[in-house]
Structure formats: C-alpha cells, structure tokens
C-alpha cells in the first residue's frame, strides 16, 4: 500500500498510510511495547533494546535503537490520548537532529474494513524541518534515488 508524504505547511510533514486492520488492532500495534519493537526500526539491522510506554497524559515513551556500536534514543511525552483514535506527544531525539522538540499527532481513521494512520509532525521551525536528519539510522539506505547524480546540487 502506498504511503503519502505531504508538506501541508512550512513547519509540517503529514504521512498517511492505510493498513488492512481495524482501528483497535492498529492502536495496539502503536502502544504495546512488545508489538512496537517489532516494527518501529531502521531499515537494516537495527534493534530496539529499550521500548517503554507509559500510556497516560504526561507519561513518557522511551525508545532506544542499536546497530553495532551505534545508538540513538528518543523520548516522547504524551499530551493527549484517546484510545483507538488519536495520540499527541512531544518528541525529542537525544542528539536533537530535529532542531528542538517536534509535536507528533497520530490519528486513526476508518477506511472500509481497514484503517488509515495519519502521522502529523510539527517542527519547531521550517529550518528545523528542512535541516532535520535521520542521522545514522538512514546510513547505507541508498534508495533508488541515490542515482539522482547531484542533480539537486546542479539545480540549486
């Protein structure tokens, strides 16, 4: 199924994706640590040794990923929780690649017998969004677009 990635505003990113499961199942996969650590990974060989979720407003979510000697961590604080429907949290990576906290809203929407997961990310500033880097996690993730041959540089 196709993922849609949009930039509705200068500080925002919106990601939409449909899943062939009902909302309560998708909610579980987003909030139960044993399920989250199975999918919230990097593309190749990252593991998630730490995954704790204190699912209440004001509660924290802590993720740590590892691959070889590389480590990265993310702490989130829940601002709003509506079970099977939406959660809002502030997020900050340990190494702050995102230029300050981001405000992340994940909402679930019925779509026939499936569910659309909408992830809205609000960055501290446009510079923060455009300068954000996934750092180590995407190293070696040379998608097909790597062949763009410095076209961006030529066009700038």
């Amino acid at each position, binding site marked *: 199924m196709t993922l849609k*990635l949009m930039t509705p505003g200068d500080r925002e990113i919106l*990601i939409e994706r449909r899943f*062939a499961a009902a909302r*309560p199942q998708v909610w*579980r*996969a987003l909030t139960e640590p044993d399920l989250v650590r199975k*999918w919230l990974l*990097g593309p190749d060989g990252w593991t998630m040794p730490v995954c704790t979720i204190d699912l209440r407003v004001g509660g924290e979510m802590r993720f740590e990923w590892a691959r070889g000697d590389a480590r990265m961590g993310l702490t989130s604080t829940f601002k709003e929780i509506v079970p099977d429907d939406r959660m809002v949290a502030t997020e900050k990576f340990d190494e702050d690649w995102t230029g300050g906290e981001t405000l992340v809203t994940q909402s679930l929407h019925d779509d026939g017998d499936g569910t659309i997961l909408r992830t809205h990310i609000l960055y501290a500033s446009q510079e923060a969004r455009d300068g954000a880097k996934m750092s180590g996690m995407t190293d070696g993730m040379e998608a097909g677009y790597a062949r763009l041959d410095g076209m*961006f540089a030529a066009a700038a």
Partner: protein
Amino acid sequence: MAAAALKLDETFAALADPTRRAILRRLAKGEASVSELAAPFDMSQPAISKHLKVLERAGLISTGQDAQRRPRKLEPEALVIANDFLIELRTLFDSRYAALDAVLEELKTTGATGD
C-alpha cells in the same frame, strides 16, 4: 511557497524515471524547447512531450512565455523541497510500515485478545 505545497508523491514519481532526470539535468543549464530537449534522446517529440507533461504536473518545470518556442524551464523550488531528508523519511516509514503490516497480520491470525 504555497504553490509548491506540495505534490510530493507526483514529484517522487516524476523523479523516478531516468529520462526525466536527464531532461531536468539539461534544463538545469538553461531553458530549452521541446525539439532541443528531444535532440539528445533517441525518442520522438511526442514521447518527450509526455515526459514533459509529467514533470510539469509535478511542478518541476514550467513553460515559458514565448508562444512560438514554448521553452521549458526548471522550477528549482520543487527540487529543493523534495530534499534528501524527505526522501529518507519516506523510505524509512515505507520500511517501518511494511513491518507494521506484518505485525497486524500476526495479530489477526493469533486472535487479538484486546478490545
């Protein structure tokens, strides 16, 4: 900026084709007419025109004022926005969500105990 608010999916689809990337590289050096763009490719003008339409819809190029020549020119802003970070982010989420598909499939077959 609002005008570019954005057709990222169309932009990525447009960039995925090597001929279209070659056209963009040519236009990065300056505007060109359809026949000038077709010249280096072993392709008919209608085939090139099709590629140009895809690029224009994606906001990557525009058609200039000159009614006779109808030169195409690059719209660099669309490229700047479709930057490396967004490509990386998209690829990362694509891979995560494929894994999430598998988790959800497993939940179904093992009989979800929740809700």
